[in-house]
């Protein structure tokens, strides 16, 4: 066996985050509730630092390290960049919420940063083991975060559900991985990819693939493996829902790319069919069930399911353009989702969660500006131009037509129309209904500015989507 010094250099951002998490953990021990802002600031510094490190060491070349278990490529770096960005906003939005509910503890930040680290590992995984490592680091942190409000029955129930179902999914995934390992004798995705082309055990490979797709679908929240999504979204404190709804979707997308595209692209024909079923079901169930919801967090959970269906449509095309469209979709979705949950936090205050649809009544009277921000977010999610969400949908539809699956594009747009209804209902509630509670929005300036920037970004990037699209395309060498 060769002895070579591992190329640590390319994993610098991960190491930095790990070091900082430990530092935050230690420092937080010495903080009182009043001075805990230090923990918050330190966490944000970690994200900024990681972003700087990722950015300065960026290269379009693909590099490997740690005996080919770790990969650094353009797609990974761009995805990591958006993970930092969305978590930065998550921490920013979450702070007032946590403070008002006596949840402003170091745990949220430590767990959050560990989750970030997990996501980074997932994004950079080049072997089955690394994927699993990253996935579990993310998932375990999230389980604990959901249970952060430990006296709340709903939160405990959600955490329990999330944990059990998540563990089940991980088990499925692991089982699938063991099949792949058995058939190819390797954990390295590059080797698996070569072996898969002419495998002498095709049946085992397909068998393993099925379990892998199940595991992946679970993490994405695709129907019929979606049952945890609404319960967890609704039961968790909004600050945690915000977290779950944003960057982990980017990481899940990365996992799909690593496992199914880097590893099993030669079996595309098999997983494409599974993805068609998963995505059509997700679009149908997500969009139709969302209509029946009265809790906005639950409604957004079903909307997430539908969005994940759309994302999978991009992936299943099996072309570079399709992957780039799906990546664009994921990033856009994370931006919109962060904004939408941020709005719920903006309207909430101590003792008032603002998680019912009716809590948005008459927002236009209360604050025309934030009603407009929410309007932008909702129309963007519905896929109405000129907002960013429209271009995300168009890029995916375009690839579907490109691979001669126009019928699938038609199915997707039909469900988008159904989906438009519940987004419109929020706008109806904000603009057409009269205000019921006249309390003013009294959140700090940083939250207001960040949320405004979030909404404006959706509008401005919607008017000029070229650069972001080009960035996604460039990571796939287009």
């Amino acid at each position, binding site marked *: 066996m060769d002895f070579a010094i591992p190329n640590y250099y390319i994993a610098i951002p991960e190491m930095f985050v790990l070091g900082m998490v430990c530092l935050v953990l230690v420092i937080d021990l010495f903080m009182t509730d009043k001075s805990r802002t230090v923990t918050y600031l330190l966490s944000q510094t970690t994200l900024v630092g990681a972003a700087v490190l990722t950015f300065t060491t960026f290269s379009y070349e693909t590099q490997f390290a740690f005996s080919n278990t770790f990969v650094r490529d353009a797609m990974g770096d761009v995805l990591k960049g958006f993970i930092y960005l969305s978590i930065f906003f998550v921490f920013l939005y979450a702070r007032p919420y946590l403070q008002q509910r006596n949840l402003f503890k170091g745990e949220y930040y430590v767990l959050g940063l560990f989750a970030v680290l997990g996501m980074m590992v997932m994004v950079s995984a080049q072997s089955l083991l690394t994927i699993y490592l990253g996935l579990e680091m993310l998932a375990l942190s999230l389980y604990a975060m959901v249970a952060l409000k430990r006296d709340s029955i709903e939160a405990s129930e959600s955490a329990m559900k999330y944990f059990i179902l998540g563990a089940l999914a991980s088990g499925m995934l692991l089982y699938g991985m063991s099949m792949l390992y058995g058939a190819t004798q390797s954990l390295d995705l590059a080797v698996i990819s070569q072996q898969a082309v002419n495998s002498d055990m095709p049946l085992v490979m397909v068998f393993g693939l099925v379990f892998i797709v199940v595991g992946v679908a679970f993490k994405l929240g695709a129907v019929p493996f979606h049952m945890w999504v609404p319960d967890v979204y609704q039961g968790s404190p909004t600050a945690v829902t915000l977290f779950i709804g944003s960057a982990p979707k980017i990481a899940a997308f990365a996992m799909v790319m690593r496992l199914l595209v880097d590893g099993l692209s030669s079996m595309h024909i098999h997983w494409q069919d599974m993805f068609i079923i998963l995505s059509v079901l997700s679009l149908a169930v997500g969009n139709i069930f969302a209509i029946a919801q009265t809790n906005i967090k639950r409604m957004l959970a079903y909307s997430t399911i539908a969005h994940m269906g759309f994302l999978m449509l991009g992936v299943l095309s099996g072309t570079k353009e399709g992957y780039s469209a799906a990546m664009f979709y994921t990033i856009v979705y994370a931006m919109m989702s962060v904004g939408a949950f941020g709005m719920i936090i903006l309207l909430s205050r101590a003792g008032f969660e603002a998680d019912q649809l009716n809590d948005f009544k008459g927002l236009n009277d209360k604050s*025309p500006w934030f009603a407009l921000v929410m309007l932008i977010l909702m129309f963007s999610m519905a896929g*109405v*131009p000129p907002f960013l969400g429209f271009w995300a949908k168009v890029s995916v*539809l375009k690839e579907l*037509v490109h691979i001669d699956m126009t019928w699938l594009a038609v199915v997707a747009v039909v469900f988008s129309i159904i989906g438009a209804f519940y987004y*419109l209902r929020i706008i109806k509630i904000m603009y057409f209904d009269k205000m019921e509670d006249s309390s003013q929005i009294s959140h700090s300036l940083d939250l207001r500015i960040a949320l405004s920037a979030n909404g404006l970004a959706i509008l401005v990037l919607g008017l000029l989507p*070229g650069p972001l699209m080009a960035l996604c395309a460039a990571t796939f060498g287009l």
Partner: protein
Amino acid sequence: MFFELPLLSLLIWTPILGGVLVLLTGSDKNALEAKVISLLVSVVTFALSLPLFGLFDTATATMQFTEQHRWIESFNVNYTLGVDGISMPLIVLTTFTTVLVIMAGWEVIQYKVAQYMAAFLIMEGLMIGVFSALDAMLFYVFWEAMLIPMFIVIGVWGGPRRVYATIKFFLYTFLGSVFMLVALIYMYFQGDTFSILQLHTLKLNLTEQILIFLAFLIAFAVKVPMWPVHTWLPDAHVEAPTGGSVILAAIMLKLGAYGFLRFSLPITPDASSVLDIMMIVLSLIAVIYIGFVALVQQDMKKLIAYSSISHMGFVTLGFFIVFMIYENTGSWNGAALGIEGAIVQMISHGFISGAMFLTVGVLYDRMHSREIGAYGGVINTMPVFAGFAVLFAMSNAGLPGTSGFVGEFMVILSAFKANFWIAFLAATTLILGAAYTLWMVKRVFFGDIANDNVADLKDLTTREFTILAILAVAVLGLGVYPAPLLEVMGPTVDNLLQHIAQSKL
């Protein structure tokens, strides 16, 4: 000098940015500022659209005032603008109507004035965008974005059932347009371009053409609206505030018809030719059946809404009769008359329907009722107003000398070339239109004063008089001397006909 200015971009962005500026005036404390800025912006936009008319070269069918910029490279989408003889008059109609709508809302709107005015200005910019976009994606963006301000206008300032009406409006039109989106993307992969003019020359086989035609049909038929997808319109009209109804009837319906001219006919001529019977039948149903429906309405706005559907049936009839003329006579002579008549009808209906809704608005502002039964003998208390109302009603009924006559007459003449019975059925509108419009006028304006409320009515204010007088001039002007309009559109229509005469198979 004007040629160097990006005139179309200015026309699109002046009202949109003006709308943002109006929004910044904030609460109703600054309502007057909001109104003044809005009026200024709309007048400036109207003034900017006049050079479009003045400097328009009527000798050519090529696109004029063109602009082109890269927009989204990886998507091959460009910001391409330009107008021809069909879109230019519609742009002027848009800027003209918006000024009137802003004036019409001056005293009536008391709640969230800035948002109301801003919505109309932004909508104006987006509608001009639709008329001037020469890139299919850009067209689609404007086309869809336009729904947002209208959704808000109906929902916030509308009548009692506004929520139902506005969501229905949005979902119907959204439903229509997403299929168009898929069709556009499909064509992109056939022709590797989103440029509308290049799509005009794209070869497509008949199956593709028919599917694309149907996708477009859903989008445009909902907007026009054609029978049987018209049911959103009466709801939307009844619930919308007066300004919303005017924009809906005068401009938004024209967008659907414009879509047929810009997309369906030139891109899928063979499918249009194959399916012409279906389109003609649907148009005739709109003209006749909806005419009867209008006859029995009790609500004035609903009556005008149905009359709009019926009149728009003439427009689609004019577009598709040309294929039948060709099939029956083997030549395209006389076909131009049908399309030109349809376009004249579009412009004229823009004036007339706008005017009709404004007259209803005048009454509604005073009595807060749109029921025909609540009125009677209004002429006794509002003689000046009644004069205007009768004029507009006459032109709605297609009286010679008013603009309503020109378009209908041209379409009927051209229908005679195709088939006597089609022309005969289409001509029944002259009776039906007269029946439902004049009967309404009779019940509302003539006779004895029906009740005390009517007895207390005050005649027009100066503002209302100005608005209606401007419209009256437009209606009569177009009716007596439509030549300039015909001259503008002539080469473009000829070019369009030459284009659709060539099979793309």
